[in-house]
């Protein structure tokens, strides 16, 4: 019998309509095509999500999270209506209320505080992608207490980059994937950024480029790296400076680049008795001074024709000034940084350090190449070609989240600069609106006036002690103690300290905690159990120590249970957003770009986009910027704001399709059709950089002019890269006793040591605080590529990929302690203990253990069954990490944070491990279930929209 092949429909209709918007399954912001189909009732439903091929970020590809978006918009954990707490805090007992009632309650608290003392409101937003808007709102409200989550994420990388070279990795710039031949990846958090790194790694592999992964854990990107360097956590700075040592000694540095484009030739005051000791010499126009090599005379750095010298010295009035470069060379050529002297500490052999240094030198200099492209620099000098140095680097949280993270990130940026690989072909390239030096950013502001706005933006870049956010009595102006002597350059605030400080009344008590999209009673806090207690703690009168908590989230997260009032947000396919050039846009190295989200489906619940709710609250509170002259609401909703708000005349949240005809990019009048034009264009707008402006952006006249034309700058602002960061030196000078604004005594020594103007390495604070003989093991978390923080667990597809998170142990510990797969261990830190399942992982630093981040869930949250593995076997490492360093006996609360920026030092953690016999039924600590405000998800899913 001949087999008759059945007919297969190879031409099915794919969708009734494709709606193009921006993903929000993580922070990466890819473009997506949302395929819509009509269901039986004729309603358009989401049928399938794929990447948008035209989009600058992902160019068609999409990760697991993005493709699972359909399970996020149908997730049973979605909040359904505003909630008012009726049980005790933390119980999860709520009643649903109307939006009128919810907004009335919110306006009551917010209005009372605004009229009396706006600092009593702490408004912090978590993984917010609308910070230029939420910050604008908070400024108009008048509280000094606003920031987003950067303080517990990667502010060290961002701030070190801005102060050093006017930008850092990820949103600030990217490797030149098409030309790089050697790529070094340190640490990394997977969504910073997600698809572009994978695409980039593939491009490198296709061209046979070498990839070196520096990470205690060999997984993900490190699994495909050609070389894996399983470094000891917290020692990256030492390793990097040892590479610098070898390169300097061998003269394998880009002298031409250093003299032209960095402050290497700028003269440093050498008078130890002076108030300006260690500061940079300036002329009467306040311009940095260098020695002009042909004449041997001092000159302004940017004088036409000047040829800065690195080898000269300059004496004025008996004071010797030496160029920055000589200080730098002297420091890093010291034996302290010789490979032999760092090898043991870093866990990398001296021979390997030299091999990597040699490879950096070989590729940067022996494989240098020229691009035939003329360009003109800021001194007016014309160059016939652009020189490529095909070495690039990337890093984010791995090296940032330490108490020595800022200086480590600085070291990495300085290494790139020594090799001359920043903003050149084959190296690291900025993405507009970067490069943008610290001086071009605002300074922070904190002046509070009842009933009026704050005197300026909250967050920015300080230049010295005069810019700290201190009250007249010297106490911190902000609840998180940002911009104080404890962490002077805390450019993103310290969200991880807000609840702890508010509970302690240190520096003062607050009235209302208002938070958005931040799971602070679970995975987003250190000391999770302690935070739960702080949120529920009552004073002697029986009132909550933190009196009011308002929280907005789209989902039934653990934090919802701790709010008094819950404002339910929409999912990402039900809302407007702008991924703005005023904030953290989606630009590429060759183009400025921004994007929108728009409601491709309407919510089927009584929920509202949080930003629209802020517009409404702003109007109800009569806040400037949110009301018209007649007192009526200025913006109907967030979309109305996005299109009609102007930050400066002609500059608004979106850059594309501006002006009457919608043909202007960057600058242009408000265009009422702008949102529709974005939708027609696939949800984004792109404006390309001219070819002669593509590289050397900080110094390239063509780029500077282009940036002014589209409104990134008001005037050209070429600048030098800071090998030596003078603002750091200003804080050190104060600690040495100079100047009228003085640090408290207990911080003097620490400031002298850690706010060094040249990158410095010191051991993570944890090493000095705990007995390293007892707590010998480093413990880390990593984010799985298919999950974003806690968001993935509610997703029926993604939780099947990562529903469990054993503690992974290296071979040495696993065998020495006699573990077998399926065993459990008690992991103890100086702060607490957890009892959790373990598994073996061979590709791991010998003294490091790790687990996946935020897989563990509280019973009752996220609409999961209380017996879900995430709630029974899953766990958080957070219980082992305190937001404070152990008490030092001085009665002071020392934050477990970087001393420069205040970044949470998650990865300093040290632990010890014991095998437990008779494992518990659940991971420990185990908490009582919270009552779910949304019930529980259905048992089976078979999701098909079309017929």
């Amino acid at each position, binding site marked *: 019998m001949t087999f008759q092949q059945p007919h297969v429909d190879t031409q099915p209709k*794919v969708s009734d309509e494709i709606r193009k918007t921006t993903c929000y399954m993580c922070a990466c912001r890819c473009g997506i095509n949302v395929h819509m189909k009509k269901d039986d009732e004729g309603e358009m439903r989401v049928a*399938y999500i794929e990447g948008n091929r035209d989009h600058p970020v992902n160019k068609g590809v999409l990760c697991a999270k993005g493709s699972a978006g359909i399970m996020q918009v149908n997730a049973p954990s979605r909040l359904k209506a505003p909630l008012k707490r009726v049980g005790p805090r933390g119980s999860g007992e709520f009643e649903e209320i109307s939006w009128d009632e919810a907004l009335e309650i919110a306006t009551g608290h917010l209005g009372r505080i605004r009229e009396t003392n706006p600092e009593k409101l702490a408004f912090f937003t978590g993984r917010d992608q609308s910070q230029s808007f939420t910050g604008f709102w908070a400024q108009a409200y008048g509280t000094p207490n606003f920031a987003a989550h950067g303080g517990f994420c990667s502010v060290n990388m961002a701030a070190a980059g801005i102060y050093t070279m006017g930008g850092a990795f990820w949103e600030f710039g990217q490797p030149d994937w098409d030309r790089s031949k050697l790529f070094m990846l340190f640490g990394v958090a997977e969504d910073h950024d997600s698809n572009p790194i994978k695409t980039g790694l*593939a491009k490198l592999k296709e061209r046979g480029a070498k990839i070196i992964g520096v990470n205690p854990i060999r997984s993900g990107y490190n699994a495909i790296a050609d070389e894996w360097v399983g470094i000891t956590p917290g020692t990256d700075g030492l390793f990097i400076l040892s590479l610098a040592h070898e390169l300097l000694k061998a003269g394998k540095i880009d002298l031409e680049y250093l003299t032209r484009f960095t402050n290497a030739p700028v003269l440093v005051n050498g008078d130890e008795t002076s108030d300006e000791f260690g500061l940079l010499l300036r002329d009467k126009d306040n311009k940095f001074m260098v020695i002009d090599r042909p004449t041997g005379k001092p000159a302004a750095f940017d004088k036409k024709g000047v040829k800065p010298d690195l080898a000269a010295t300059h004496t004025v009035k008996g004071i010797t000034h030496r160029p920055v470069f000589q200080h730098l060379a002297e420091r890093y050529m010291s034996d302290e940084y010789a490979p032999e002297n760092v090898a043991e500490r870093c866990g990398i052999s001296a021979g390997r350090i030299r091999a990597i240094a040699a490879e950096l030198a070989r590729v940067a200099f022996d494989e240098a190449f020229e691009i035939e492209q003329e360009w003109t620099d800021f001194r007016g000098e014309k160059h016939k070609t652009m020189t490529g140095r095909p070495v690039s680097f990337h890093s984010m949280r791995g090296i940032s989240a330490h108490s020595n993270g800022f200086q480590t990130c600085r070291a990495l940026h300085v290494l790139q600069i020594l090799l001359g690989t920043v903003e050149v072909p084959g190296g690291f390239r900025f993405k507009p609106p970067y490069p943008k030096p610290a001086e071009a950013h605002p300074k922070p502001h904190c002046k509070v006036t009842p009933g009026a706005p704050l005197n300026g933006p909250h967050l920015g870049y300080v230049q010295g002690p005069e810019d700290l956010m201190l009250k007249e009595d010297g106490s911190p102006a902000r609840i998180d103690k940002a911009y104080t002597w404890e962490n002077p350059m805390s450019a993103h605030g310290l969200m991880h300290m807000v609840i702890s400080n508010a509970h302690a009344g240190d520096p003062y008590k607050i009235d209302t905690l208002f938070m958005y999209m931040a799971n602070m009673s679970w995975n987003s806090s250190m000391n999770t159990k302690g935070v739960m207690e702080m949120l529920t703690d009552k004073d002697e009168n029986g009132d909550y120590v933190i009196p009011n908590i308002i929280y907005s989230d789209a989902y039934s997260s653990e934090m919802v249970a701790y709010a008094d009032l819950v404002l339910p947000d929409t999912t990402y396919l039900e809302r407007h957003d702008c991924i703005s050039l005023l904030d953290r846009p989606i630009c590429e190295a060759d183009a400025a770009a921004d994007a929108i989200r728009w409601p491709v489906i309407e919510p089927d619940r009584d929920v509202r986009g949080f930003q629209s709710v802020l517009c409404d609250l702003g109007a109800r509170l009569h806040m400037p910027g949110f009301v018209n002259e007649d007192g009526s609401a200025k913006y109907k909703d967030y979309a109305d704001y996005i299109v009609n708000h102007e930050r400066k005349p002609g500059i608004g949240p979106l850059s594309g399709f501006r002006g009457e005809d919608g043909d202007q990019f960057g600058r242009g009048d408000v265009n009422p059709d702008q949102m529709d034009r974005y939708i027609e264009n696939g949800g984004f707008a792109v404006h390309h950089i001219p070819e002669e402006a593509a590289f050397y952006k900080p110094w390239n006249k063509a780029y500077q002019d282009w940036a002014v034309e589209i409104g990134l700058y008001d005037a050209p602002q070429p600048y030098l890269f800071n090998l030596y960061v003078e603002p750091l030196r200003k804080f050190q000078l104060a600690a040495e006793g100079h100047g009228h604004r003085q640090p408290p005594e207990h911080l003097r020594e620490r400031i002298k040591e850690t706010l060094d103007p040249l990158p410095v390495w010191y051991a993570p604070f944890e090493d000095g605080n705990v007995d390293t003989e007892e707590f010998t093991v480093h413990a880390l978390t990593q984010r799985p590529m298919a999950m974003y923080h806690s968001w993935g667990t509610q997703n029926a597809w993604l939780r099947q990929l990562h529903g469990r998170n054993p503690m992974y142990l290296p071979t040495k510990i696993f065998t020495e302690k006699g573990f077998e797969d399926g065993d459990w261990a008690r992991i103890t830190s100086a702060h607490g203990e957890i009892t959790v399942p373990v598994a073996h992982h061979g590709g791991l630093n010998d003294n490091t253990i790790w687990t996946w981040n935020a897989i563990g869930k509280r019973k009752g949250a996220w609409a999961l069954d209380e017996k879900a593995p995430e709630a029974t076997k899953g766990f958080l490492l957070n219980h082992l990490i305190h937001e404070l360093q152990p008490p030092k006996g001085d009665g002071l609360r020392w934050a477990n944070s970087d001393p420069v920026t205040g970044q949470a030092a998650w990865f300093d953690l040290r632990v010890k491990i014991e095998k437990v016999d008779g494992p518990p039924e659940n991971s420990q600590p185990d908490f009582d279930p919270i009552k779910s405000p949304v019930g529980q998800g*259905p048992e089976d899913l078979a999701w098909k929209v079309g017929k």
Partner: protein
Amino acid sequence: MTQLPAQTERKLGLVIDLDTCVGCHACVISCKGWNTENYGEPLSDKDAYGANPSGTFLNRVHAFEVKPDTGPAQTIHFPKSCLHCEDAPCVTVCPTGASYKRTEDGIVLVNEKDCIGCGLCAWSCPYGARELDQVAGVMKKCTLCVDRIYNENLPEEDREPTCVRTCPANARHFGDFADPDSNVSKLTRERGGMDLMPEQGTKPVNKYLPPRPKDTMEEIDILAPLLAPVASEPKGFLGWLDKALEKL
């Protein structure tokens, strides 16, 4: 029993590059999304929010640790779906003729109308590439997106399997192995593409590209020419600097 075609006009399949796969599962979920909405019954999930969630997937990524004789352990991410074998045992074992291999392109499919959910084909597949959907009770497997690759409702550039289209690491390639000049034939030749478990005699169409050697950088002692010091003492360095600047 169903007969296999003596030969097929084309041999469509995938090349999967184990050198670049980072184990992100993008292909797994994109496949789940497309095939839930398209070909046959949706891919269901039992106990979706419960203690033992278990769904149907046509493609899964496994991770294996390899410890070489020297050097640290390595992790290989290994995506696995139906390999569309030339001698597919899942076809010949099928009692109803539901399981078959297409004569025109070699794609192995299940005609869900004729599938009785007996599971024999899954049992016979040495790769574990088939999954019985627990809600629909029919056998599910990779269709190589037969409803995409010829689909004129899609732009031409999108007429490829959804796992290939979505892969951020460019680790998946689709093409015709019967054509020696196709991208997949070339990649297989150039990169030493391998059969999975050839000893099973199934003649899989899909090929795997092996990871390139790792940790090959040799340690360097102090006298390496690339790192030869320019001077033996700090003062000498300044002298070198002066000379080097003169040459600029």
